């Protein structure tokens, strides 16, 4: 975690800050989602409380807080209460592993602008987010309600089915960058497009060096799979209102519900962050390298520390913008595509996305193999 007390303290504070960033993003996203859906459906959305309805978030929080604490008689108390708490963990752990900005060099110290730099980034995130199935199952079974149980079974079957396509679609990316580490992936996507092919370097100046240009199919598959992973429309079969009331959180209300909400939005943020990292160059500003940005800021301020801090800040803002784009797509899709039927959902996961992801893997391997030789 660090070598001395100062570094450890900073790292702990950083972790807490990343968590708080995730938590405070939730009300903003909820507001954006409600206003955005109002915009898409040609209605107003919440606009009464405060300017643009922004105070609605506060009002909602207070409302959530004053709701009666309630658990049904048939519930298994321990699981019923543990589930919302556990719902926070996968999203937080995953989000903390995503680099949010270029490393900050302050004197002798180097601080990564992320919760922790885990060597095997993707594997860790996949592992952690696969724990989300427990939350769903615990909530569904712990509620002692058959709709909740049915919703939980559906949700978990769906989550694990799409985990296959999710895991397989990134094999091509891992192959291309030759690493699991997210920071190294981002470093590989700096500047304008250039790559080695048939023994000589091919470079263009009009495209950024982003993963999406090398792996477009993987990008589509990955993004579609993350929708299913985070139980969002059009894949929110777990809570098809007509059949299952509200899925696994039928019996939840008040703050417990809010924790589930934070977990779900955390999932979305992890998904968007990974999309940005894999395919849109992470925190990189398009067409530039980290070094170029640093030199640019060094032209304004003398001290190397300040320039490094400004570089990190610029990159952090860039990452936030990319994150926001994907989060907006999440919201946009919700009001654009209709919900799938359950068999369609499973067919899409197993019979369409999985074979395409396989094809992508084979194709990537063949191309990388063919291109790396100068025949």
């Amino acid at each position, binding site marked *: 975690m660090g070598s001395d007390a100062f570094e450890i303290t900073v790292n702990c504070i950083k972790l807490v800050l990343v968590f708080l960033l995730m938590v405070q993003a939730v009300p903003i996203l909820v507001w954006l989602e409600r206003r955005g859906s109002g915009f898409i459906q040609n209605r107003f959305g919440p606009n009464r409380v405060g300017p643009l309805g922004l105070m609605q978030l506060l009002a909602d929080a207070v409302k959530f807080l004053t709701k009666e604490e309630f658990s049904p008689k048939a519930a298994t108390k321990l699981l019923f209460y543990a589930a*919302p708490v556990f719902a926070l963990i996968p999203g937080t752990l995953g989000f903390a592993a995503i680099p949010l900005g270029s490393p900050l060099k302050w004197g002798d110290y180097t601080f990564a602008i992320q919760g922790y730099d*885990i060597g095997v980034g993707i594997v860790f995130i996949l592992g952690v987010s696969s724990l989300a199935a427990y939350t769903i199952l615990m909530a569904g079974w712990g509620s002692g309600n058959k709709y909740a149980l*049915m919703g939980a079974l559906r949700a978990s079957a769906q989550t694990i089915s799409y985990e296959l396509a999710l895991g397989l679609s990134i094999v091509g990316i891992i192959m291309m960058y030759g690493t699991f580490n997210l920071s190294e992936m981002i470093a590989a996507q700096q500047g304008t497009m250039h790559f080695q092919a048939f023994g000589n370097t091919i470079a263009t100046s009009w495209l950024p060096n982003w993963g999406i240009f090398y792996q477009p199919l993987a990008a589509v598959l990955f993004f579609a799979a993350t929708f299913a992973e985070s139980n969002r429309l059009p894949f929110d079969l777990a809570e098809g209102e007509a059949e299952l009331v509200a899925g696994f959180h039928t019996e939840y209300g008040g703050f417990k519900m809010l924790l589930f909400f934070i977990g779900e939005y955390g999932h979305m943020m992890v998904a968007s962050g990974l999309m940005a990292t894999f395919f849109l160059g992470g925190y990189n500003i398009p067409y530039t390298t980290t070094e170029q940005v640093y030199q640019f800021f060094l032209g304004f301020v003398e001290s190397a520390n300040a320039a490094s801090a400004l570089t990190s800040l610029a990159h952090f803002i860039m990452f936030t913008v990319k994150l926001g784009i994907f989060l907006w797509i999440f919201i946009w899709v919700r009001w654009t595509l209709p919900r799938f039927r359950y068999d369609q959902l499973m067919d899409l996961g197993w019979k369409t996305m999985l074979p395409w992801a396989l094809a992508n893997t084979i194709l990537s391997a063949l191309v990388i193999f063919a291109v790396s030789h100068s025949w």
Partner: protein
Amino acid sequence: MPLGGVIFITVFVAVFGCLCLYLGRLCGGKKYQDAVKLAPYECGIPGQEKKETRVSVKFYLTAILFILFDIEIIFMYPWATSFKEMMAAGIGAYALIAMMIFIAVFIFGLFWEIKSKALEWD
């Protein structure tokens, strides 16, 4: 070592969640409970006594097939990281053929499952 950070944030989040639950309990409105309220929510219809839910066996079949395919995918990861290095070391063709055999087995399994209608939901 990042592991300490992982454990720290896990504990922190768990404590945060528990505090939230406690806060909700503290500030929650008055308690009023009767038999109907405590019953499982079934859209207003009186709940059936036995929660004998007939669930499709498909769910666990899906879960089993998921495990098997998931492991095959996991096996591709170490190969994917070291593919370029293996090519640099001159065993690229060999690694590629080994993986293609493995993927062929994977594809055969997948299409077998699709053909045998194990993945049909209706």
